[in-house]
């Protein structure tokens, strides 16, 4: 057995990073130097803000962040946390009515977020970054970053079993593991038979069965021992699968991807059944499907391109299809405390009725 390459976490380093540039580019010094310009007096507030953001690697606080591209959303009890473009992480404690932008030490796109409890969560993204929060998403530290790995290719999903044990998957077959809450991340890509280095798009838990990973060109892997060994499966589809979702039934899993393809397995991926999805005018759904979630009442929601929102109340055997009026592509979905949906994607966050329709439209 070969020794896995252990990569030191950069957590300790990050603290330094956040302070050194701030000293070099003191906002006050900058503001003073700018004050010489007469015309600046009228605009003092804007340049000051710009100056304090400049020279740091933190994401820029922006009123537009809730409306810019967001890619995943997690629901942790009362709080919603969403991540997306430009290092934006936002949280809401009022069912999505208002959003606070978290302090995040990156400006790169974040692709996925996962919370194991009300306080402990991880986010992954481009530049092979892993961020962690211990205060419910308000502040974040960088645990891992690797610009060398395929020129900073992105991590695409993250899943934790408990506060210590977790996995990250990503582009070009990236698969990493931690057993200490992210202090150390270990590349365990060689545990998987993914010689062609297909992108791994999602990692999910299947009830009473183990872990499941789907990816580019329909590749799929399962691990009955929760990540120690991985078995390559023959998938039902040669197109890419963007997401997977376990259901409330043991061994039952849904996978979905390009052009409205959605498959269901009741036996942890051994056999598959294609689920047909028809749009309002009875044509087959042709939009890609990106992400899904289980709601408190046991129903299942899957979202995707073209404002697609699928809903199933029978653990994924049948779905109703809605295409939202704005047709904006969706990348993530979570249920809110009040039973409504929070959708994220193009145009940022959208709150919706459990059917996927805009709340205002009801």
């Amino acid at each position, binding site marked *: 057995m070969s020794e896995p390459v252990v990569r030191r976490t950069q957590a300790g380093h990050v603290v330094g990073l956040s302070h050194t540039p701030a000293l070099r580019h003191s906002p006050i010094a900058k503001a003073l130097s700018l004050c010489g310009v007469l015309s600046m007096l009228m605009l003092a507030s*804007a*340049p000051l803000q*710009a100056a304090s953001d400049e020279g740091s690697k933190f994401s*820029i606080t922006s009123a537009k962040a809730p409306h810019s591209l967001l890619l995943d959303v997690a629901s942790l009890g009362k709080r919603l946390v969403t991540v997306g473009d430009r290092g934006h992480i936002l949280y809401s404690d009022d069912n999505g009515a208002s959003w606070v932008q978290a302090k995040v030490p990156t400006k790169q796109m974040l692709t996925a977020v996962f919370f194991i409890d009300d306080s402990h969560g991880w986010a992954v993204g481009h530049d092979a970054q892993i961020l962690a929060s211990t205060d419910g998403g308000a502040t974040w530290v960088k645990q891992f970053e690797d610009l060398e790995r395929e020129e900073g290719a992105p991590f695409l999903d993250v899943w934790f079993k408990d506060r210590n044990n977790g996995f990250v998957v990503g582009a070009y077959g990236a698969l990493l593991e931690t057993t200490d809450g992210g202090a150390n991340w270990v590349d365990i890509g060689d545990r998987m038979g993914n010689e062609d280095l297909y992108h791994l798009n999602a990692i999910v838990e299947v009830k009473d069965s183990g872990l499941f990973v789907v990816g*580019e060109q329909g590749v799929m892997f399962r691990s009955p021992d929760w990540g120690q060994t991985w078995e390559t499966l023959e998938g039902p589809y*040669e*197109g890419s699968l963007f997401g997977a979702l376990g259901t409330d039934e043991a061994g039952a899993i849904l996978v979905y991807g390009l052009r409205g393809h959605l498959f269901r397995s009741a036996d942890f991926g051994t056999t598959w059944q294609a689920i047909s999805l028809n749009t309002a*005018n009875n044509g087959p759904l042709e939009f890609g499907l990106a992400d899904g979630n289980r709601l408190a009442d046991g129903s299942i929601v899957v979202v995707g391109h073209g404002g697609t929102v699928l809903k199933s109340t029978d653990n994924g055997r049948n779905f109703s299809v809605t295409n939202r009026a704005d047709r904006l592509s969706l990348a993530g979905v979570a249920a809110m405390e009040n039973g409504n949906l929070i959708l994220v994607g193009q145009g940022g966050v959208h709150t919706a009725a459990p059917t996927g329709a805009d709340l205002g439209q009801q």
Partner: protein
Amino acid sequence: MSKHQQQPASFLERLIFNNRPAVILLCLLISVFLFFQASQVRPQTSFEKMIPLGHPYIQKMLEHRNDLANLGNTVRISVEAVDGDIFSKEYMETLRLINDEAFYIPGVDRSGLKSLWSPSVRWTEVTEEGFAGGEVIPQTYDGSSESLEELRSNILKSGQIGRLVGNNFKSSIVDLPLLESYADPEDQSKQIPLDYQKFSHELEEKVRDKYQAQNPNVKIHIIGFAKKVGDLIDGLIGVALFFAVAIAITFVLLLWFTHCFKSTLAVVVATLIAVVWQLGLLHTLGFGLDPYSMLVPFLVFAIGISHGVQKINGIAMASGEATDSLSAARMAFRQLFIPGLVALLSDAVGFITLLLIDIGVIRELAIGASMGVAVIILTNLILLPVMISYIGISKKAVQISREDAVKEHPFWRFISNCAHPMVAPISVVVAVIALAGGVWYGQNLKIGDLDQGAPELHPDSRYNLDNDFVIRNYSTSSDVLVIMVKTAPEGCSTYQTLSAMDELMWKMENTDGVQSAISMVTVSRQVIKGMNEGNLKWETLSRNQDMLNNSIARADGLYNGDCSVAPVLVFLTDHKAETLTRAVQVAEDFAKENNKEGLEFILAAGNAGIEAATNEVIAASETTMLIAVYAAVSIMCLLTFRSLAATLCVILPLVLTSVLGNALMAYMGIGVKVATLPVIALGVGIGVDYGIYIYSRLETYLRQGLSLQDAYYETLKSTGKAVLFTGVCLAIGVATWIFSTIKFQADMGLMLTFMFLWNMIGAIWLLPALARFLINPEKLRNKA
């Protein structure tokens, strides 16, 4: 009688009045030549003349003009479905007909024409095999509900929503790129330059009128530079009609004033000769008529009439004493030539100060107006008295003038109270309060254009309503600030460059008043997403250079030929000065912090960039110009009256007018801009006339030993009517402009009307009050 009338005839007077036939003949010859020239003057609008060529933004823009090809000249026709949406057979058919019709309008770059019916408008989709795609309207389209449904799904996949198709699917656009010149259909070897007016009319007739009549369920909106210029030229020609109105009103007023048809005709003819000469000279010197220099003939006419009135007034009074019309004309010439000359020279000097502003149209306005004023010296100060010396003034007019000279005038007696020792202090206090109030309120005055849409036209003009429609329904605004990103050749697609551009765009998008920003980064992100099966999680820049190079291959027009210049287009919500200043400042700060060897952020192009530069130039010129124009007229007054006190009496009322004018602009929501800046110089330059005429008379009577109030009464009796009339004449000449369809002409008209009237009021009311404090009649009498 007065000292002037006893003065011996000057050399000039002898020269003119001893050679009257020669003077007439000479003027006739000049008129024939210049009339021929004037008949060839054409309306023209040149883009470069309206912008401050010396400003660094403009220089950078011109320097990189060829690198910014895509920001070209296009017209967009938005076809709106009034009921329902675009997915109906009838709508699509009308759209196809419009598409075909527009294709054949001369000047349209047919290869670039784009609408839903263009084969080049395609949809793409990611499939298991990679990209799939096709024409948005497929060959199999037959208008059935199935093909309309297919069309809907193709449009959704085409990425044209917000660009060619309205955000609410209720309208779509036909995009017409234009050629500045095109091959003559009759003779392919000849190139015809695009005639904006003709093109604009063709759009109206062949597209708007035709298809709105054909399909009542569509409404057509047309926007674009060419349409705007077409509308402007139409407005310009409309203004020419006002000229006839101004002449008619003036004629009637003159008749009422002079009671003499002959002299009325003489004044109008002499003044029209001045206008013809001015226009002829304009063409001879190679200028055309633009929407700004269009003002000059009106001004020349108004100034000419006002000086003509002074002349007629003088001759009528002289006729009371003189034996024949020739000696009356000579007497009036002797009396009025010098004050007239001084007044006209001050006008000219006031106009010349406009040359300080580095904007072509204003400089041409300055040259044209100075020229026009110089011409008036010849026509109305020399030719007019010579003409009158032949035709004389009607007996009735002389009779009235003679009676006026001796009878009591209760109105003027009442007005002469302005010089009363009790009234004068009150007047001064009122003036000071008005001045303070004006200064306080004038602080609200803004630089630049304040309304939405095309600032040249009224907010409720059809063009601006169309523009508003497009802004509301599509994801682009018409106010674009362009920041040029310059790198080494082949350097525009590096990760370093693109990520810096991306950061600039985000910074701009987070600035108040910025709607959105696009650049090659926008395309790159989309294409990278596409290369990754449309997965949103890849919609960002890649550090992989091959991927970046591939991703920008489709970003045509968003970088130049050798990938060394790439524009960042920032769409603003409006073009108010604060919006522009704020956006430009953020971009400047970003450039200052991020410019380095091989990566430079350069401001600015785009209409918003040009407006930002124009605003800066105007803000900088405003004070300089005010100082210059006041210095110029003060020096003219000092030279004439050789007295500081007299100069103050004439200048201070003008200052009050300028200040109140600013307050009025603030109140009316008119900004200081290319159109209103000259108004200040014109107002002061012309306004000084009243003061000069009144003060020179007042001084004459004071020297004769009259008390201030009596002297002022005599002044008003002899010249007050003429001054009053002059003010009204000038105001009428420019007031017709208020009804112009061109917004800035209307603003100019309003401001000039105010300035001319208020300057007159200031001269009649405030000048004597100031004289009460500043002038010592004893001293003047002793000097005499």
